[in-house]
């Protein structure tokens, strides 16, 4: 199915990543957004607030991020596609509702335009310090999907992708932007509506009696209905059975949590998305995501000019993590170098998958700006020295 043309601004635009994210959401069919002002993400909701009255959408500025992150879920059960948008401190406030969305299998998108933390940190400057929070921030065991764009164009394209994955797997999807990408202005080409692929949740239309709202088929993703359809559904954050009824048993917990994990894990090959360049035959692979994928390129080029065999793997989907691919690479390269705008987060995943088979070098950065290519170059050179 393709995008509703009413929301699609086909053409070439010179806009920032935040605005491109808004346009991506509209093209994806998002028609409810709740948010609370916070730098550097506010431009996303500002544009949504400006555009929504003309495309059949409702935007509401809620009283805080906690309210925003649950209002969107009310809207989803009212039949809409919905998202909320925030940055560091606001993202912290939303954590409980990421768990609620995971538990109730409410498809929705959380946009986090990352800024340097902890706490108030550097509100107007970039970081990638929320990557582990995106994965693990809510209590208990669950799975989410997280995506990291590296340009305004990708803020558009991948926001659509985020909604599509969210609808497909009924899972909260984190759009992990950062201040640099969010405020960077570049050309964004918006295709014609019929060229934009849009997925919608599987809707149940069978008999109303004995409808099992949380019974999943082989793909482990249940069908969905909305409030008002006459199915008299019950949705709870408590451990629940297929009917959606609370059930405080160990067996129900085991079955439910296992399925919530498996619907992402077992479909990981379809969800995982990365780009590689010069990885075949490389001695060193630089693994990046988001804005860091761009700052690493000059370093990789300089290293290759010096004769080093350096490849580049860029995570587009960060969670689930491409474990298999990193394991494979670790078995045949000398080193993996991972620059990220945090003090070392995704690199733990790399280390876990490499399991000692190759040298893993973190290039940490506390945030506030992006890496200097020379620092990444130095790490690349150091990574195989003495090996």
């Amino acid at each position, binding site marked *: 199915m393709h995008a509703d043309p009413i929301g699609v601004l086909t053409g070439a635009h010179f806009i920032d990543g935040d605005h491109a994210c808004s346009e991506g959401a509209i093209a994806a069919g998002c028609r409810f957004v709740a948010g609370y002002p916070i730098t550097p993400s506010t431009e996303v909701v500002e544009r949504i607030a400006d555009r929504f009255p003309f495309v059949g*959408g409702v935007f509401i500025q809620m009283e805080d991020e906690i309210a925003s992150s649950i209002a969107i879920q009310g809207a989803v*059960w009212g039949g809409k596609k919905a998202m909320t948008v925030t940055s560091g401190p606001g993202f912290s406030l939303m954590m409980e509702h990421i768990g609620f969305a995971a538990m109730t299998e409410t498809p929705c998108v959380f946009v986090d335009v990352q800024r340097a933390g902890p706490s108030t940190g550097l509100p107007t400057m970039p970081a990638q310090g929320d990557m582990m929070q995106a994965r693990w921030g809510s209590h208990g065991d669950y799975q989410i999907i997280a995506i990291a764009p590296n340009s305004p164009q990708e803020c558009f394209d991948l926001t659509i992708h985020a909604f599509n994955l969210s609808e497909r797997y009924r899972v909260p999807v984190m759009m992990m932007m950062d201040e640099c990408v969010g405020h960077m202005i570049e050309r964004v080409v918006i295709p014609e509506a019929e060229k934009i692929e849009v997925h919608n949740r599987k809707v149940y239309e069978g008999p109303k009696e004995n409808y099992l709202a949380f019974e999943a088929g082989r793909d482990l993703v249940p069908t969905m209905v909305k409030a008002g359809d006459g199915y008299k559904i019950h949705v709870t954050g408590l451990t629940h059975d297929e009917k959606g009824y609370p059930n405080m048993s160990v067996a129900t917990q085991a079955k439910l949590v296992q399925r919530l994990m498996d619907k992402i894990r077992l479909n990981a090959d379809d969800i995982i998305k990365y780009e590689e360049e010069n990885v075949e035959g490389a001695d060193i692979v630089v693994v990046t995501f988001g804005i860091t994928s761009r700052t690493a390129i000059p370093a990789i080029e300089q290293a290759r000019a010096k004769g080093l065999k350096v490849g580049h793997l860029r995570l587009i989907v960060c969670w689930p993590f491409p474990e298999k691919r990193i394991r494979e690479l670790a078995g045949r390269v000398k080193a993996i170098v991972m620059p990220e705008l945090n003090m070392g987060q995704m690199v733990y995943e790399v280390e876990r998958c490499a399991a000692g088979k190759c040298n893993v070098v973190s290039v940490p950065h506390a945030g506030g700006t992006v890496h200097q290519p020379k620092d990444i170059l130095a790490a690349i050179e150091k990574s195989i020295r003495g090996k």
Partner: protein
Amino acid sequence: MPEELYEIEANIPANPIEEYLRMDRMPHIWCPGCGIGTTVNCFVRALQTSGLDLDKVAVVSGIGCTGRVAGYMNLDSFHTTHGRAIPFATGLKLANPELKVVVYSGDGDLTAIGGNHFIHAARRNMDITVILINNMIYGMTGGQVAPTTPVGATASTTPHGNFEETFNLPFLAESCGAVYVARWTAHHVRHLTKSIKEALAKKGFSFIEILAPCPTLYSRRNKLGDGLDQMEFYRDHSQIKNGADTKSVAIDFQGDIVVGKFVDKERPTYLEAMNNHYQKKYGDRYVPSEEMRKVFHA
């Protein structure tokens, strides 16, 4: 079990409210003497005569004893997170204005952890009905002090007595802009049923506070007897004062309780304000959602 007992059970006529409940979830978790079930009965009887299409009524609860109401109603029902029933209901209503969205939750849930949402939904005149069960205590977690615990009462976290000022909820709701404000007790079943029916028919933010006994944690700890004693107290110490100034209806420990309908007024609801604003400003350029069009632009 002897054969004849089966016979007797089979001959018990169905309770007329059964079809409104998820009977496959009974028995419920509420304690003997708890007032919540009584209020649910009133809610159902209000629904019965409300003329509402029950396929279009949704109940949203937070967490706590009252938070379990959503799970027992045979309606679209949402048992959300602690304190967040109102913002969830806000999203639900804005997504589909055809729905009658009822928030049914407790005093701690709605006015402590959820207090911020309560005041803003009232300010916006959000199109929802809020039914708040005030048992003056956190029941589910074992009897801790709430913003609604009267001064002088004890709770597990105020073992030496509560000295914090108590929320006067009707005053709070009115101050923030609620268009319908009433207070009843679990004893006033007829008044309450009528009041819920009125609140359901009301556009905008309607609010009913219902005092209900928590014999297990509040009454016992405060040596007030059991559920029946509390109901008798409500009977003997309630004064019906419709139209009373909400400033004057604060609750004291075992003092008289002013009940009644305090506020019933009109002002534009959130949805009306939004639709009128855009319609006026942009005319045909304004594109309301399909659901919005059905309700506001028919």
